[in-house]
């Protein structure tokens, strides 16, 4: 058994490491990155590439920093809206209480993908069913015959 010393196991319960909650936009951004809403390398960072080439002056660098932060904010906003849409929340782009609650819900650790498997393209596809079969399935909803 998991070792405990208190009658009510409170020493063990208190010892359990609690997951950090999503509380602000920074932790929300981490969440969105972790679960695939913000993809790495979504937006090219012009500052990085220019610096690497050694061809940048200060004025350009400041402009690029502004452009970079704008792109970054846009990226976060887009991801936030995607998350809100998928979770049937008002798509406000605002990190509100409802969004925070949704992010703090227990969830699976696998990232979210946008693509669902093609549920209609079966090897023996239901799309080959003809109209007669649709009628048949509908007619099944009637009561069975009574003698």
């Amino acid at each position, binding site marked *: 058994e998991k070792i405990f010393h208190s009658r009510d196991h409170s020493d063990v319960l208190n010892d359990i490491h609690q997951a950090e909650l999503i509380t602000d936009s920074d932790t929300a951004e981490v969440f969105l990155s972790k679960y695939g809403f913000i993809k790495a390398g979504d937006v090219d960072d012009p500052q990085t590439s220019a610096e690497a080439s050694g061809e940048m002056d200060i004025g350009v660098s400041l402009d690029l920093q502004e452009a970079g932060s704008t792109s970054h904010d846009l990226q976060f906003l887009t991801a936030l809206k995607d998350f809100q849409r998928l979770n049937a929340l008002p798509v406000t782009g605002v990190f509100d209480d409802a969004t925070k609650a949704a992010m703090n819900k227990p969830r699976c650790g696998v990232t979210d993908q946008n*693509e669902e498997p*093609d549920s209609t393209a079966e090897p023996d596809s239901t799309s080959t069913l003809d109209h007669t079969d649709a009628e048949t399935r509908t007619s099944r909803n009637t009561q069975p015959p009574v003698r």
Partner: protein
Amino acid sequence: KKRHLEALLKSRRRRDAGHMAFSKTLLKWRLIGEGYSSQLSIDEQKYIFRLAFRMWSEVSPLQFVEDVHSPLEDIDIRLGFGTGRHLGCSQRFDGAGREFAHAWFLGDIHFDDDEHFTVPNTGNGISLLKVAVHEIGHVLGLPHIYRPGSIMQPSYLPQDGGFELDWMDRKSIQSLYGVCTGGFSTVFDWIRKEQTPYGEVVVRFNTYFMRGGLYWLYENRKNRTRFGDPVAVQVGWHGLPSGGVDAYIHVWNRKTDAVYFFKGVQYWRYDSENDQVFTEDSDGHSYPRLISEGFPGVSGPLDTAYYDRRDAHIYFFKGSQVFRFDVRRNRLASSSPRLLSEVFPAFVPGNHPIGHLDAAYFSYTHNSVFLLKGSGFWRVSSRRRASLSTSVLLPRRELDQQWFDICDVHHSSLR
């Protein structure tokens, strides 16, 4: 070790139109010894995982077996509990709350043991069964699905009563692995009488499919089998051979209400009131009896049979022949036997089973007779189709397009 495992497993996986999936239908799983939960007994954990795998078996051609003996690299799906840094995994758990589990595509499943996992139908905590079914879905190749009711939703929703895999989740897994196919030994509608609270006697029926020693109850209105099926024949039908039966008939007219099962050269009469076979008939003859004694002119083994209330004849099918048996006179009709192709001619020339049927089934849902052979069936046209004669066979169709998701499970998971 992980690279070696990956190299071994690559040969078993296939890439098919952009969707990866296991390339075999029997998958081995194991709850690894160093990954037991501290919250539930080992037996409870294994029972829940066994049930979770079975739920996917019930809707797909996949079967799962717990394997505690093979080398670890031969195990397809390994499950384990851990906290924080766990089981050599690169993805750390975050403690109680938020992330409760994760799974590796075509690989392992890890559960965060800081979460309060519980057995099914317990009020508090996180249902381990529901989480396990979800994570197994990932291992099999399903992504997260943002659809209300889907088991593959990323967020955990408290279990409301008994959750099951709905129609769309079934189609999702079947898009990767195909639908369940295969023939049946017997199909029938079982008539039962019930009394309403007002004292009125009503007649209801249930549809059963049998394959060898297993059977399913099919819910016609819901286009699926009963949750938890198949069941072993000896569990639900007391006194019948454990390997199943060849045929079933229900002789139902003004004078007679009798159910018979046939296997080999023998037959039994079934006692619906007491849910078991009769031990002897009205003359004191013990069951099982020889078919030739109870139905003069007919001998086993049979392919199948059904009773037609419209003409009060039993149709026995044997090879390419049909034997019409008059129950009122207790003898064969004068024209018997005849060829199947004569009694039930094809509507489309050449589109005919010819003989050696698996099952003949009168369906009260469809008010039609169906002749089953292999993975297909032919529907006998009804009198309502005015342009056709009353007993032609409509063109062959696949069983899985009419009756959905009748799937085998591994025998180790049978009740």
